[in-house]
């Protein structure tokens, strides 16, 4: 059962409701790569019987990092844990982003809490031109951008309310700047993902997108996290969360 324990080494508020944790667990750190996630028990009580999936933000030596946004009961309670506490974390889980040394030019697009896995990818993937597109609701919610700058060639930033960077949606900014990318990595709200995936497909640009779906087991056994793909039903926790853009958003959805 030791496997499940991760010690909180550092806790930091990134915005008023986004918390970064540096966690210690050799096995999870060792196996992590961009796009995978961990499944976190948010409190000791059995009122909440489901773990919460959170992307890995970074991993090195025996440590890994996550950022979570306080959304509901689970993440609210997760926010109570402090440095030194042991968290019950299962992972890393799922299939993440893949990279090839042949790529010359790639883009990363992250929106909201979808920013985390693509930040990790942008830090990890080397040897080509890297453009990063980050969308936030408003200036106060911008995070992780300072440290990201040194890893990318261009950093494009938007806020929905125009309080900083491009005023409007990151999708629009991306459409403007889109060029002959060899690969685009995407994670964000479903509407944003769908729009970008369809645009890229139309433009015959390759891409990988990280999907979000409510989860039960997180390991592929309970089948609740289903999504339709061109290969039939797949499960976000096991076959994803990262999918090739050819395979998903294949139907017009309401």
């Amino acid at each position, binding site marked *: *059962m030791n496997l*499940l324990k991760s010690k909180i080494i550092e806790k930091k508020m990134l915005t008023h409701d986004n918390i970064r944790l540096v966690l210690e667990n050799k096995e999870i750190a060792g196996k992590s790569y961009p796009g995978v996630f961990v499944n976190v*028990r948010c409190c000791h009580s*059995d*009122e*909440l*019987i*489901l*773990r919460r999936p959170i992307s890995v933000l970074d991993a090195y030596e025996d440590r890994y990092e996550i950022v979570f946004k306080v959304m509901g009961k689970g993440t609210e309670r997760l926010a109570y844990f402090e440095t030194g506490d042991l968290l019950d974390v*299962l992972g890393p889980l799922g299939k993440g982003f893949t990279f090839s040394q042949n790529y010359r030019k790639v883009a990363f697009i992250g929106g909201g809490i979808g920013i985390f896995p693509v930040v990790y990818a942008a830090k990890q993937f080397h040897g080509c031109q890297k453009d990063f597109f980050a969308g936030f609701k408003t200036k106060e919610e911008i995070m992780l951008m300072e440290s990201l700058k040194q890893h990318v060639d261009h950093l494009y930033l938007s806020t929905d309310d125009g309080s900083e960077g491009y005023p409007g949606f990151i999708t629009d900014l991306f459409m403007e700047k889109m060029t002959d990318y060899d690969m685009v990595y995407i994670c964000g709200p479903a509407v944003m993902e769908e729009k970008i995936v369809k645009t890229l497909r139309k433009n015959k640009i390759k891409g990988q997108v990280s999907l979000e*779906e*409510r*989860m*039960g*087991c*997180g*390991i*592929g*056994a*309970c*089948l*609740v*996290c*289903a*999504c339709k793909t061109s290969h*039939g*039903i797949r499960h976000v926790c*096991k076959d994803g969360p990262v999918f090739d853009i050819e395979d998903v958003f294949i139907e017009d959805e309401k």
Partner: protein
Amino acid sequence: MKHVNTSVNIAGVTFSNPVIAASGTYGFGREYGNYVDLNKLGGISVKGLTLLPREGNMPPRIAETPSGMLNSVGLENPGVERFISDEIPFLSQYDLKTIVNVAGNSIEDYVNMTLKLNETSVDMLEINLSCPNVKHGCVSFGVSEQGVYEVTKAVKEVSKKPVIIKLTPNVTSIASIAYKAQDAGADGVSLINTITGMKINVKTRRPVLYNNTGGLSGPAIRPIAVRMVHEVYQAIDIPIIGMGGITCLSDALEFIIAGASAVMIGTYNFMNPYLCEQIVIDLIDYMKHNNIDNIKEMVGSLRLNG
């Protein structure tokens, strides 16, 4: 070191211990095999199978509720034939007993699946008459004495494997239903399946589940499940497999004391993927410390008050 006997015999099948993974929560064992040694479990009841492959319901298929969850997977499964070709070879490597959870839309479906499974190495059939997530589906059989009787009879007539009937809790008298199953020749019953529930998103004024309703499972339903096992134990003579919200050995023992010969562990595997094996370990410890030589001593050992 004292030896304790944890093995249980249900309808001629000997499980090395009474801990069985519940249908629909453990897939076909592959994924949890990364966490537990499947050889250590008494058995596994595989994801509910239908004659033909099914895609299941649209997401969201899950919603959390106080100490429980709703699911509306809708019997997504590869169909019985792909199960036979792809999954049985995998499960056969292990020591645990394989129970096949069979779901149908008609008596013919159940019979046809039984015939196909007859020729395989699986140990037991669990007839799912109670899945609440399939429209026009098996739900109708499980809630009526007549329906349960007919399906059980038909399956028993053709089955070469022992047959247990999985009972739905969404009924007025689960004991009467269980009695009918026994009457029709069932070799055992398992209970409870999920209780139909609904959660509403107040903002959108829509059900959280795409399927609108789903099946409630987890600790929330445990007191209901224990009561039903107790009622059924008083009504029938064939073995009972009990389940509903088990999170630890003590919960499992409640079911055994109430009359279950074995237990199934469902939803709480999601929280603790090591749970099934852990309960087996804890059970052996418990029996040693309490001088219980044979698990059978505990089955139905409840003494009522008053």
